[in-house]
């Protein structure tokens, strides 16, 4: 009897789920996390004891998980047609698009492999402080999503995949933050920062993303230095440095393009190493080291300009002296 009720509830949940799944191209983040939540709930309906866990996996927002349980609860207590009306009522108006049940019944797994990769790796990040950057963390992440830990087999690069995914995520976050600041400056809400300050803030923001994993970061760095990971890690590093300079306002198209990026790469790498050894409160020593390095680079750039200007002045002086000599000796006169 209890099993029959559970089966009925499961059926209603599935139909209710499919009724609120909107068109696949929606980019409403709440809705997509809802969809992920629902899909996972669908996967787990075999094991009723695990349905409580559906509220706790990391990839869905807490709001979606609470609405999942709320939804399931509601389903159990009402008839089918009421549940559909209620499910439309429960969620945003934007979700109410999914009014047709019939053609949504077939929608179950349409997540791509890359999305699944990303989900497992995102979940695995939580277990890094515990297991380090390793296959165990990935396996623990997969299990927290209630997928079999054998799914780690699809990560042929092992821990490298996890570290590279984390780096890519940090870079994406940084780009988002910089773009947002850029927009604010363009709209005149904020004053534009000077180059040195901009670079310092950008590198600090980026390095702060490592703070939750700082204990295990040396391991991650050594993984990035493995020969088969070097091309990818260099690519991530170079795109990050290019992004920072672009938003700092660099539009150079000569050798400065290379020297600036090389300088910033040096600053970033050395500051990262200092951060690993830093034990001061809130990494104050690291930020002051960063400040000094950025100042050094700015000073070097100024010095280079001065040297060039001096050189040009010297050359002009020499040319002037030569012409004077020619005039004095009469070589300049046409005969």
């Amino acid at each position, binding site marked *: 009897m209890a099993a029959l009720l559970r089966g009925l509830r499961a059926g209603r949940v599935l139909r209710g789920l499919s009724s609120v799944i909107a068109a696949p191209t929606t980019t409403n983040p709440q809705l997509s996390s809802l969809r992920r939540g629902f899909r996972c709930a669908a996967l787990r309906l075999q094991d009723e004891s695990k349905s409580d866990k559906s509220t706790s996996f990391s990839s869905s927002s807490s709001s979606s998980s609470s609405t999942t349980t709320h939804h399931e609860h509601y389903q159990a207590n009402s008839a089918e047609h009421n549940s559909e009306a209620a499910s439309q009522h429960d969620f945003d108006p934007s979700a109410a698009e999914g009014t047709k049940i019939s053609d949504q019944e077939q929608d179950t797994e349409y997540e791509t492999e890359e999305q699944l990769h990303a989900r497992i790796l995102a979940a695995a990040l939580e277990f890094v402080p515990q297991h380090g950057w390793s296959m165990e963390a990935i396996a623990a992440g997969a299990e927290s999503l209630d997928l079999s830990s054998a799914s780690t087999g699809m990560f042929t690069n092992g821990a490298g995949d996890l570290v590279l995914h984390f780096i890519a995520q940090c870079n994406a976050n940084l780009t988002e933050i910089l773009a947002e600041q850029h927009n604010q400056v363009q*709209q005149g809400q904020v004053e534009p920062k000077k180059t040195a300050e901009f670079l310092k803030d950008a590198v600090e923001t980026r390095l702060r993303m490592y703070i939750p994993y700082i204990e295990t970061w040396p391991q991650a760095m050594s993984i990035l230095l493995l020969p088969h990971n070097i091309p990818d890690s260099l690519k991530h590093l170079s795109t990050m440095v290019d992004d920072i300079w672009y938003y700092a306002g660099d539009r150079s198209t000569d*050798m400065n393009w*290379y020297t600036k990026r090389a300088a910033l790469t040096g600053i970033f790498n050395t500051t990262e190493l200092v951060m690993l050894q830093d034990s001061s409160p809130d990494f104050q020593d690291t930020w002051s080291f960063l400040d000094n390095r950025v100042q050094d680079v700015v000073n070097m750039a100024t010095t280079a300009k001065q040297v060039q200007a001096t050189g040009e002045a010297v050359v002009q002086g020499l040319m002037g002296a030569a012409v004077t000599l020619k005039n004095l000796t009469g070589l300049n006169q046409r005969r």
Partner: protein
Amino acid sequence: MQRAAHVASCSWPQIVKPAMIRHSLKCRAPLQHSSRAYSVVPPPRDDDERDAVHRMLRVDHAGEYGANRIYAGQMAVLGRSRTGPLIQMWDQEKKHLAKFNEILAENRVRPTALLPFWNIAGFVLGASSALLGKEGAMACTVAVEESISEHYNSQIRALMENDPERYFELLQVIKEFRDDEMDHHDTGLEHEAESAPGYWLLKNVIQLGCKAAIYASQRV
């Protein structure tokens, strides 16, 4: 109605974020060129297209930079004597380089790492050809401009084969520059380039060097 809305949205470049610009460009009208939110190069649809277009822009930029340095070398030697035609050509090359600088900066294209080489090599080539006299300088101009025109023509062919409508502005820019380079070539011929000493040898050696430079700049 929808198109008008998209045209309107395309004309607020400062407020509309780049991603939104790309979305609105997906339903752009082919004839309303002014409604596009970019100026010359369309936003790439995928990495391959981006790499191909960036490579093209990189080598064009390197070419114009080299041409500028060649004229600078020629002017350094012959500047005080036959200034007329040379100055005019160099000014046009400066404009070309400025345009490519603008395009590179706008599209975040990496300039070629061989720029210092082209700097020195171009200047040396210009100066040494000018030391052979006015005809030598003109012969060098003829050879270089012929190489550059050929190169631009092959790029125009490639873009036309691919999607002439999508690259309309870029094609216009390259066509205009190619026409200018052909003018320089003709000017060089007019000013007795062919009577330079060892014209055939000079021309072929310089053209070989240009081909090597183009090959290298596309890859580095």
